[in-house]
């Protein structure tokens, strides 16, 4: 096993991508993810890859369209406002079935907002902020090590389904340093892409496009895509259960918030509350199954997000009325304290008569 290295989250993502065979990066500066393109600008030339600072986020995602179509494993990264600008491009990539990995180091919104950590782009990521029926797998890692592993996996998943994959971080995950290990066996080699436009030398020409003029054709295309998305729902959903065996209250949180909730969970348990946690690792497909496994003791859910409440809808859809679902959130970089989560748990316990 390799040595742990102390790395910034943004740099760890970049290194993970390169080890996953990524050889094309295009992006546009934006805080709090700048270390990622900066790292790429140094590393890509070393591995014979391409680093491009695009003129805008719009250009960057469309460069990815071209590069992915030409067969490269490719990455772009940005933060909230920049990701909004990529929505048309993401929709095009889904339509033309082009793989890519897209990193969103989420910051406070809406508008210019601020550059502090947030989770308020959940809807955009999981519902598709662009037009049309499309989906992307969305990972929500909670540590740098997990981020490294999921970024590497993201490239495989993207290629497997010929579809973009998104990784949601936040200012904390992007900026913090933590030891990470790059296991040598994690190195991936891109598979052949018999659809890439590489010049029609001795073969039929290839066309990549998302236009289907005839309604019947586009309808057919959409249901074909939907079948792919259904495959993802079946196969790609991931989550972690924490102390759920005897839990009466269940926290639901992802990413940085899940870390805070873990501390809160310990505190609450010390205070006598039987609390567990479901930590979605994929935000889409949402790990609905995790909620089906809830024990008989479970009385209610508390969803904690750095937003005014977005994932809470997916939890309600997963729970489907079986138990109450409460919400606690902070926004705009105002990260909640573990104690505030404990207080919210205690309120919920009181409301639901838990522990009485």
């Amino acid at each position, binding site marked *: 096993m390799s040595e742990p290295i102390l790395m910034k989250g943004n740099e760890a993502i970049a290194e993970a991508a390169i080890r996953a065979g990524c050889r094309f990066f295009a992006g546009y500066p934006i805080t709090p993810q700048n270390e990622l393109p900066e790292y790429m600008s140094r590393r890509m030339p070393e591995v014979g890859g391409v680093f491009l600072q*695009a003129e805008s986020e719009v250009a960057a995602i469309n460069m990815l369209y071209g590069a992915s179509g030409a*067969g490269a494993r490719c990455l772009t990264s940005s933060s909230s406002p920049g990701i909004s600008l990529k929505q048309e491009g993401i929709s095009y990539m889904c339509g033309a079935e082009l793989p890519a990995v897209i990193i969103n180091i989420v910051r406070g919104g809406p508008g210019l907002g601020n550059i502090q950590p947030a989770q308020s782009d959940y809807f955009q990521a999981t519902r598709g902020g662009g037009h049309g029926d499309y989906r992307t797998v969305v990972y929500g890692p909670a540590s740098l090590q997990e981020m490294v592993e999921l970024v590497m996996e993201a490239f495989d998943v993207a290629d497997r389904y010929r579809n973009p994959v998104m990784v949601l971080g936040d200012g904390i995950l992007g900026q913090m340093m933590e030891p990470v290990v790059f296991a040598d066996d994690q190195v991936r080699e891109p598979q052949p892409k018999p659809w890439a436009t590489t010049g029609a030398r001795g073969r039929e020409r290839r066309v*990549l496009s998302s236009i289907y003029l005839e309604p019947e054709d586009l309808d057919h295309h959409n249901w074909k895509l939907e079948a792919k998305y259904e495959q993802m729902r079946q196969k790609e959903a991931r989550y972690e259960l924490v102390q759920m065996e005897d839990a009466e209250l269940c926290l639901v949180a992802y990413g940085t918030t899940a870390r805070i909730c873990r501390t809160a969970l310990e505190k609450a348990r010390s205070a006598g509350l039987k609390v567990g946690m479901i930590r979605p690792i994929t935000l889409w497909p949402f790990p609905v199954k995790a909620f089906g496994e809830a024990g008989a003791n479970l009385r209610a859910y508390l969803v904690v997000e750095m937003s005014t409440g977005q994932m809470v809808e997916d939890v309600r859809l997963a729970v489907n009325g079986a138990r109450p679902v409460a919400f606690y959130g902070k926004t705009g970089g105002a990260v909640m304290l573990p104690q505030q989560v404990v207080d919210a748990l205690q309120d919920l316990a009181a409301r639901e008569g838990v522990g009485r």
Partner: protein
Amino acid sequence: MKKIFARPRSLKDTLMHYCPGCTHGIAHRLIAEVMDELDIRERTVGVAPVGCSVFAYNYFDCDFQQAAHGRAPAVATGIKRVQPDCIVFAYQGDGDLASIGTAEIIHAAARRENITVIFINNAIYGMTGGQMAPTTLPGQATTTSPGGRDVENKGYPIRVSELMATLEGAAYVARVSLHNPAGIARARRAVLQAFRYQLEGKGFSLVEMVSTCPTNWGLSPLAALKWLEEHMLPAYPLGVFKDIQGGGQG
């Protein structure tokens, strides 16, 4: 009996969907002829825009990508950087290139991207039914400038070749016209030069083709050619605006 003029190999058999007399078809054929001449069909990747030529990929017998509106230069950049041995060209209309795609075309040139862009300037949005383009002439009536383009309110046409020629990264920028056989012959030479430069790694090349849109100009194909000659050519002078191997406005 020898065939002295034949359909180029690089063009497919497919019927083109363009309106009668639309010069898009001529532009396509010229590109295909040059692909034949340089023997690059098997290593060429084209990028189709959004505009009447969105289906260009149906007509060329080479690999193709269809790009989002205005983003063909960014898409072409992605392809070329990943496949530097491919010959990559983007085909764009004036709405696509000079309006929504202004940033992408300028930065592709500034970046010295080693690609070729064929730019069809027909002074109108053909595909969407005849709205004003950045290249619409002063006074020209369109569906969004019904009283004629009024420069006080709607501004002046953008001269793309002149603009692009200010960029150091551009190796070759020329404006040609498709309104008669002589113009078409010159256009062919410009396309050949542009692709040659790419083959030689000289950097960004752009050929602006002054073109017609009989349908949305509301003119017969022949009247459209005449209108082009009388109105477009004075506003869009032909010539080579940039050539890193010497030469210039001419």
